[in-house]
């Protein structure tokens, strides 16, 4: 045990606490005292989560993986019938708090994938090798899609891809795995699909044998052609709904209002920012959901380029720390878990900030540790707890 304690990763904990503190300050500035108080209730719960997963013997968690995964599926099904939420069924309302099972699915799916992949010696680009992991990821993904919550559902894909890569699958094969869906989504607009097709063609002809390349290209084409066919079968309003769901970036009339507001807030921060509590955009209420998905805009407005860059660096170091822990762990299962978590945190941070900067479509992805919300904070804390556990005890 003494030997293990030495490995306790103090810098990871410090980075985490830094992010949580930034989040609290930002929530206070953007949402006011009411939201800060509510979020403060979740902070001890988050700390408890960190220590719980830090102290929990991983063997127990390993043994519990399947039951936890099954429980997640049950909750995801139950939320479809019992859940609440505006326009979708995403949360269980428990008293004045709400619980979002799709958040916890991120953890259990990663655990399940890690367990499955860890006793596979080698992963090959064939059906027998990939059917298992795909099923593990796709079933909860489809259930979350039914809520419907596309942006959370997509959060399951990066850990899946990263873990397959970590386990030795070539990036080309991972890309080909997702190609049909990418092609279908790109198919909503020719302007998107043509560059996609060209990119795919160049890639497969450079990296694959001729006939396989042709087959891959043909598959992509079929899926790409499928979307206009599907669209033509739908009524007008169904078509708009489908496009805005699967391809929110396909906005024929240019950038959305929220994106502009967010960019004005960020841009007006300039080099040094307007100062803590001095943001004007968020105070006037022009920023939508300013304490949740749009909190980075408020931070960037008040702390400017320097502050935003520092925040990016903190997040980057945190993820780099987790990657190193994964690399140093000799426990294959634990290593995969850490990779999966790193992928989730990185994906969410990148998508959240990218959409606020106007680089990506606006979707409902939270900024880890910083956005207001209990489920999101607790999920992130549990991940960190487990990664600390991994770094401390190489089982």
């Amino acid at each position, binding site marked *: 045990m003494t030997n293990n304690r030495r490995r306790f990763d103090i810098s990871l904990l410090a980075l985490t606490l830094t992010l949580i503190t930034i989040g609290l300050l930002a929530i206070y500035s953007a949402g006011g005292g009411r939201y800060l108080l509510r979020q403060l209730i979740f902070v001890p719960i988050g700390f408890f989560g960190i220590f719980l997963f830090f102290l929990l013997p991983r063997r127990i968690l390993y043994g519990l993986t399947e039951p936890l995964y099954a429980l997640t599926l049950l909750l995801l099904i139950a939320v479809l019938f019992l859940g609440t939420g505006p326009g979708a069924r995403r949360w269980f309302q428990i008293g004045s708090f709400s619980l979002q099972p799709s958040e916890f699915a991120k953890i259990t799916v990663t655990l399940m994938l890690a367990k499955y992949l860890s006793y596979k010696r080698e992963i090959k680009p064939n059906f027998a090798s990939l059917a298992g992991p795909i099923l593990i990821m796709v079933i909860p993904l489809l259930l979350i899609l039914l809520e419907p919550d596309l942006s959370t559902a997509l959060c399951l894909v990066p850990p899946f891809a*990263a873990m397959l*890569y*970590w386990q030795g699958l070539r990036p080309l094969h991972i890309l080909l795995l997702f190609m049909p869906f990418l092609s279908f989504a790109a198919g909503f607009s020719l302007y998107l699909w043509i560059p996609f097709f060209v990119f795919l063609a160049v890639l497969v002809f450079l990296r694959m044998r001729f006939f396989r390349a042709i087959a891959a290209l043909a598959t992509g084409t079929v899926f790409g052609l499928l979307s206009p066919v599907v669209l033509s079968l739908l009524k007008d309003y169904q078509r708009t709904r489908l496009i805005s769901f699967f391809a929110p970036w396909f906005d024929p*009339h*240019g*950038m959305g*209002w929220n994106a*502009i*507001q967010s*960019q*004005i*807030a*960020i*841009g*007006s*921060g*300039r*080099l040094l920012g307007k100062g803590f509590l001095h943001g*004007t*955009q968020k105070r*006037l*209420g*022009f*920023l*939508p959901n300013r304490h949740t998905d749009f909190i980075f805009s408020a931070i*960037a*407005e008040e702390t*400017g*380029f320097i502050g*935003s*860059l520092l925040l*990016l660096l903190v*997040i*980057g170091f945190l*993820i*780099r720390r987790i*990657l*190193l822990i*994964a*690399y140093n762990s000799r426990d294959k299962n634990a290593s995969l878990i850490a*990779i999966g978590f*790193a992928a989730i945190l*990185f994906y969410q941070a*990148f998508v959240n*900030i*990218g959409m606020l*900067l*106007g*680089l990506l479509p606006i979707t409902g992805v939270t900024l880890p540790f910083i956005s207001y919300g209990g489920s999101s904070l607790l999920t992130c804390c549990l991940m960190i707890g487990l990664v600390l556990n991994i770094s401390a005890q190489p089982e």
Partner: protein
Amino acid sequence: MKNRLKRLTGIIIILFGILSLRLSYLQLIRGARYARLSDRNRIRKIVLPAPRGRIYDRNGVLLADTRPSFTVTVIPTETNDSALTLLASLINLPFAELKRRLEPIVAFPSPVTIYRNADPTIVARIQENNFRLPGVLIRIDPVRNYPYHELYSHTIGHLGEVTEEELAKDSTYRRLDFVGRTGVEASYEKVLRGKDGYEFVEVDARGREIGPLAEKRPEPPIPGKDIYLTIDHRLQNLAAELTKNYDRAAVVGISVKNGAIICLLSRPQFDPNIFFSTINPSFWKNLVNNPSKPFYNRAISSGYPPGSTFKPLVALAALKDHIVTPTTTLLPCTGTFRYGNRTFKCWSTHGTLNLLGAIEQSCNVYFYQLGLRLSIDSLTEFCQRLGLGKPTGIDIPGESPGNIPSREYLDRRYGKGKWTRGTMLNFAIGQGEIMLTPLQLATLYCCIANEGYYYRPFLVSHIDSAGIRVKVTQPTRIDVSINKQDLMQVKKALTRVVQFGTGRAAQHNEITIAGKTGTAQNPPRPDHAWFVGYAPAEAPEVVFAVLVENAGHGGAVAAPIVGELIRAYFSSYDE
């Protein structure tokens, strides 16, 4: 492993690098501009209302369009209570109501519509007080305009302000928007409405607009699609002219060859333009409390006893059941008919007639005798086969199914076995519980004219979007199994009705008109006058059904109206 760690780190650095580059672009390069825009959030979102689609008649006569009107709007974030108090007094609106209209405060400074179709005096008053009314803007919006006023009140229908329930259901509507309530305006609401556009403009510190926002392209409004009706404006106008001396009347004209409605009129009418103006309360009260119910579409929503216009149908049912042949004579008409201890009257003394003669002279006594021999089930079945007793399916809302009493209906109404064959006597002359709308009678005669089929009546012939035809109504043919020989005999009788019988007032020099009069009893008030006719008798093109409430004899009142309409119909098409 080492390689993969390096690559993953590389991906993180590249992607976060992209974010940093974008950050530096927004904050360092474009920072000054965004700082200026955010200074007092100098962007305003302006709604560009979509003009509603136009409505034309079959020859391109414009029946409904939009005209510019003044709209008073308020930007909630730029105004204050003292300005609102002043505004409330200027537009004669309670302050609380004004506040309520501002309620859906949106997250950005966007003008909220407060008062539509403001008259110029109000606009002038607001402009005079401009300096005391920060955040109050006058905008010019398209508003519905009906150049022919009341002429199409029931066909095109009218608009009404959107209700709270509709707002809750469909978020694309905004407060004070107008929605189709009746007629084509209602059934084609989605087609006519179009889609509002948006524009983002930059404003200076004093709230004056500088120009469009470069970052956001305006989304132009998509005007509603244009609708072409099957209505012929000339005939509609004439129908109104011919019925102008009657309080309550209905006129339906249908093209026999495809079901296109060429004229649809209900009296009394109202001017649908009134919904866009400040209505004089007493005027409104008169309209709503008018016992003749001006909002009621008598042509499609009101069932009337069809009277003698129903007789050809009874004749066909009797022929089908082989109760009579066209030449069968029954007991002579002495002006009355005794059944049980009741005396049923005829309108004249006709002596001995055969079936065709009985139709021609509209002899009740002959039809009483048919009624006694007909089975109720057979008659009900025959009516239903012709589509009576249910809506015809015309493409505007509010259609009544009419009433075709069945055995079950009579049992329910009078008690099992409590009704007698006396009821059938009444049915045989189109009285009693039988109720048909003028539209149903018109389609019935289309079926007779076509010898066994008719088309579902429709009002919209095609829809254009920006000058391009996007939809054309395909006529729906409905076949009815009726013996063609029987139909030809009845048609012969209908021709004689106009030549020699009760419908002589509908005669025309060159065109043979066929039809049937009806005088529907409506005790204790005067009879309703009916005439349904088609022409030319040899090769029918058009059917007109005219009903005039409480106006007396169909032959005297309704037949000449149909005659005039048919005359006009052929003169306009022969030219």
